[in-house]
């Protein structure tokens, strides 16, 4: 009985080994995409939209698995330890592969060297938003006002490691402001308290604030992208509004664990690019304010690798300038 079990087990392991070698047949079974944030959030939505079409291209389903915690680093740590056979990949993010090393001193992975970058999926623009009766008519007045009023103002942020946490450190450093930072869990309650007038301003992703801006219950001073967003065509870019240094995106990109065969990574990269070219997928991403990388250099694995290295350096400097100590 036991011998038989052992034999079957060994056969199974052998079959696995063969599977890993024969990359030209890849994929022969479903691929797990670890998303380090809660289902329903911007990163999760982008991962689901992209993996839906990638699954069609690769002929195997991509299954999204949400592993949340510690600003996304829990999920990435788990994916980092997975077998590098192309059957476990992850959706990395501005936080997990950019700001994390400066925020978590016990981080188990190095974003720039411990992964095989697959490709950029989509970024979501960041907006500077404020309560609707905030006494400033444009970004220049706003910056002057928050600089002058110091910690009398309340800035809402969604917790250590969140996009609003890190990007608003960047904004405050650039604007020279030192507001009272009020910690929340998630951006929903921040926007709620902003509508009620208890929070003065925040930095947040377009998905979380677009509808409230259109409805007039909060106002936006600028969008931190190259070009205006089709979803909010009236909101000027930070460059137009006079703070060109504040350019930032909550980017999301696919990575595989270190040691994943190069031809597997290439297959995944090609599938991602095909998905991003698909009109329906592209429209879905753009409907939620997402910015899809242009075809060419920005779609390559190499570009993503260089980009991550630059991001880690950039966020290290910003977070240090913001006076935040790693925990």
């Amino acid at each position, binding site marked *: 009985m036991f011998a038989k079990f052992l034999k079957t087990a060994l056969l199974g392991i052998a079959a696995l080994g063969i599977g890993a070698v024969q990359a030209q047949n890849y994929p022969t079974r479903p691929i797990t995409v670890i998303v380090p944030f809660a*289902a329903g959030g911007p990163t999760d939505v982008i991962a689901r939209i992209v993996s839906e079409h990638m699954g069609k291209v690769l002929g195997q389903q991509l299954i999204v*698995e949400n592993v*949340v915690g*510690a600003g996304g680093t829990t999920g990435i740590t788990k994916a980092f330890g997975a077998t590098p056979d192309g059957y476990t990949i992850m959706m990395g993010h501005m936080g997990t592969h950019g700001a994390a090393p400066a925020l978590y001193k016990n981080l188990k992975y190095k974003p720039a060297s411990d992964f095989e970058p697959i490709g950029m999926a989509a970024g979501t623009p960041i907006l500077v938003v404020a309560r609707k009766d905030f006494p400033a008519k444009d970004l220049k007045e706003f910056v002057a006002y928050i600089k002058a009023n110091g910690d009398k103002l309340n800035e809402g942020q969604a917790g250590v490691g969140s996009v609003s946490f890190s990007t608003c450190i960047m904004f405050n450093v650039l604007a020279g402001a030192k507001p009272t930072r009020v910690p929340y869990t998630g951006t929903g309650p921040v926007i709620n*308290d902003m509508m*009620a007038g208890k929070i003065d301003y925040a930095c947040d992703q377009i998905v979380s604030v677009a509808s409230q801006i259109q409805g007039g219950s909060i106002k936006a001073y600028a969008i931190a992208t190259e070009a205006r967003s089709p979803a909010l065509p009236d909101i000027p870019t930070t460059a137009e509004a006079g703070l060109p240094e504040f350019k930032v995106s909550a980017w999301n990109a696919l990575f595989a664990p270190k040691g994943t065969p190069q031809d597997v990574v290439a297959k995944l990269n090609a599938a991602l690019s095909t998905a991003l070219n698909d009109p329906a997928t592209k429209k879905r991403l753009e409907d*939620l304010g997402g910015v899809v990388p242009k075809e060419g250099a920005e779609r390559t694995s190499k570009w993503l690798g260089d980009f991550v290295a630059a991001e880690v350096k950039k966020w290290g400097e910003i977070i240090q300038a913001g006076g935040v100590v790693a925990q």
Partner: protein
Amino acid sequence: MDALIANLSHGFSVAVSLSNLGLCFVGVVIGTLVGILPGVGPIATIAMLLPLTFNFDPTGALIMLAGIYYGAQYGGSTTAILINIPGEATSVVTVLDGHQMARQGRAGVALGTAALVSFFAGTVSTIVVAALGVPLTKLALLFGPAEYFSLMVMGLSFAVVLAQGSLLKAAAMILLGILLSTIGTDIETGEERLTFGFAELADGIDFVVLAMGFFGFAEILHNLENPETRDVVKGKIGRLLPNLQDIRMSIAPMLRGTGLGALLGILPGNGAVLGPFASYATEKKLSRTPERFGKGAIEGVAGPEAANNAGAQTAFIPLLTLGIPPNAVMALMVGAMTIHGIIPGPQVMTKSPDLFWGMIASMWIGNAFLLIINLPLIGIWVRLLHVPYRLMFSAILLFCSIGIYSINNDPSDVLLTALFGLIGYVFIKLGFEPAPALLGFVLGKLMEEKLRQALIISRGDFMTFVDNPVSAVLLLISVVVIILAVVPAIRKTKEEALSMS
């Protein structure tokens, strides 16, 4: 009024299309199923089904996903009543009297009452969402951090009423629950708190882990040791449906529960979890025979179940009108909407009236489906209780373990549940009740967060809780509730002391 009727009839015309009716039905069936399975909640299910909905139109997709959500509330009550396991925070209260009813051979009556009051509450709150959704949004905006903190304090004062034994022990369990909720990463500094160095605890303890440990596992241990209590369940079948007297006793609690649940459900920040607790506390206070509570009082099922379901519906108000999800399931609905290119918020009603009114109308249809599905099922559920316990307990254990694993796909959650099972077992042996600990746990996290936010915003001034009227009233209610509960208890102790000396 005319506008409301026009809007609702537009909604119904959308919702009764064959495909939308079908999706609604599928949604509530799946919802009932995952609600019944201990541990597997609507969050995991909706997340898994999201990709499937890519091919539907957004209205149909959201009708189905919403159906899963409120269907799970129905299903959750079934598990709570039959096997004493609260799958969700909102069914903790149902366990107290619902399971006692089942032990007395009145499982069918408890399930039937739950289904009927839920349908009533669902109908009323659908109308509330349609008619008052927009004006009620203002209520949500009245609640800043200070008001929330006071609301949570009021919720905890209900826990004192919930207690059946020693008030002191109940207080200890509440504090312990809050203490457990502080485990994990600090929201402000990102430091790990009370995690004993385990990375698995960095994100805190999941409610289901604690509830399964304290109720599910501990209940199995209790039953194995006391074969006589579970044999009571096996002995009688009893009536399958409530009779006239049951219904008469349920009407007033149902009305009050619906009102409380609907009101609390509107508050962003998961006010809906307070509904059943508030309803239970109210019924126990109003009852002329409060000693029946905790021993199978039908009011203790009717009120909280109505509140539970009303809250589940009105929780859609902040999502649909403000674009702010009040709980994790609603956050997932935001995701579902954005995947379909609809950004939730004040614009949805004007930009996509089909979706907005169609979804509201579908909620009523879904509730009707749930009643039709659930009433005949009661007979099957009650018969399930007759599976020999020697097989039943291992099946429950297996379902629980799989459910716990699938919350985060994390095996360490199963180990943690076993640990809480052990702790819960010891507590029960020592005369501590688990329900107040769960309430403390649910409210504790939000309470600390809001306390800190309120004090940061007021720059350290405690008067912020009294200066603002909403918060002051809530605190006043808590004080009154606690005095009403504590004074008789003290008097009783004194009398006992006198009679002994």
